[in-house]
């Protein structure tokens, strides 16, 4: 179910990334102030944009979960937040490298963009422990959805608050202060698209793997004659949603 279109998506990601790297190193001109160091911009900013959008999307999917009570939305929200967190780690590391090269410091506490992103990251870092702390799968999914929605709402508020702050040391990319020349803007857009495709591919891989594992677990239970109800151990991962479809298929298809 989740594996549909995975091959096309993977190929599109590889093509987009190759194009993006070619544009970054052979097409985009060197920036007047920072020179070659500015090339980090094409990996750091797309990582940040995609991870923040992912956190927002996770919140929207959590709303859908609370509306429908369908565990599939919880699984999607979980996977997207999980992947966004990985991208956020990438953002922090590449940002630190850029800061060291550009400013001579790995981290600048007086810079609101850096600190606000760290706050968002630390906030979402508590998502997994929160899930793990609740044993009942239904309650876990509900609480995690509430967390994803409130944190998701915090992301744009945080973004706006930083924009309204007076310090403009950190370069602005989007909005009125943006004055990227044509080739740089094109390279940047392609880089964001490539990063978004990578994000979508990783999420799809994760969802497919989790769905397949859930199906296998259900199949094993069925063949071992353990009954239909899943034996749940404490875990941060959302409970299986493939159970019904698998048991139905096994009942019809696994007869000797």
């Amino acid at each position, binding site marked *: 179910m989740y594996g549909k279109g995975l091959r096309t998506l993977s190929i599109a990601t590889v093509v987009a990334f190759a194009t993006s790297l070619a544009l970054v190193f052979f097409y985009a001109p060197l920036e007047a*102030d*920072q*020179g*070659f*160091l500015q*090339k*980090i911009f094409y*990996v*750091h900013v797309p*990582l940040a944009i995609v991870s923040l959008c992912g956190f927002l999307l996770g919140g929207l999917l959590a709303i859908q979960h609370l509306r429908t009570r369908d565990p599939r939305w919880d699984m999607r929200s979980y996977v997207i937040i999980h992947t966004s967190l*990985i991208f956020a*780690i*990438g953002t922090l*590391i*590449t940002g630190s*490298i*850029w800061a*060291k*090269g*550009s*400013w*001579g410091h790995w981290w*600048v506490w007086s*810079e609101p963009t850096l600190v606000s992103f760290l706050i968002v990251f630390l906030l979402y870092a508590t998502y997994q422990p929160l899930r793990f702390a609740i044993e009942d799968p239904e309650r876990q999914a509900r609480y995690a959805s509430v967390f994803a929605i409130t944190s998701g709402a915090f992301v744009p508020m945080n973004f706006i608050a930083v924009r309204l702050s007076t310090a403009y*040391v950190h370069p602005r990319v989007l909005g009125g202060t943006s004055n990227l020349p044509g080739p740089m803007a094109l390279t940047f857009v392609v880089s964001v698209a490539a990063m978004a495709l*990578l994000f979508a591919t*990783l999420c799809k*891989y994760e969802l497919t*793997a989790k769905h*397949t*594992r859930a199906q*296998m677990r259900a*199949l*094993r239970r069925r*063949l*071992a004659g353990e009954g239909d109800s899943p034996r749940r151990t404490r875990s941060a991962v959302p409970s299986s949603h493939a159970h019904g479809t698998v048991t139905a298929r096994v009942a019809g298809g*696994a007869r*000797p």
Partner: protein
Amino acid sequence: MTLADVPALPLHTAGKYVAAAYIVLFVIVLIYVAIMALRLSRMERGLGELLELTEQAGAEHASGHSEHKESAPA
């Protein structure tokens, strides 16, 4: 002097920072692929076990069926 006024690094110094940033992304993807490969091999093992279970269930069902036939009155 503010942070924004710091002069640009020469290419030979900036190059290592740019390389490091792109390597970070590469490593993240590489770790992810490695984790996926581990999961895939675990899944393959699991599928093998399931296949064995299916064969066992099939054999038990077949033997039970033949016993039932033998014990049935002519």
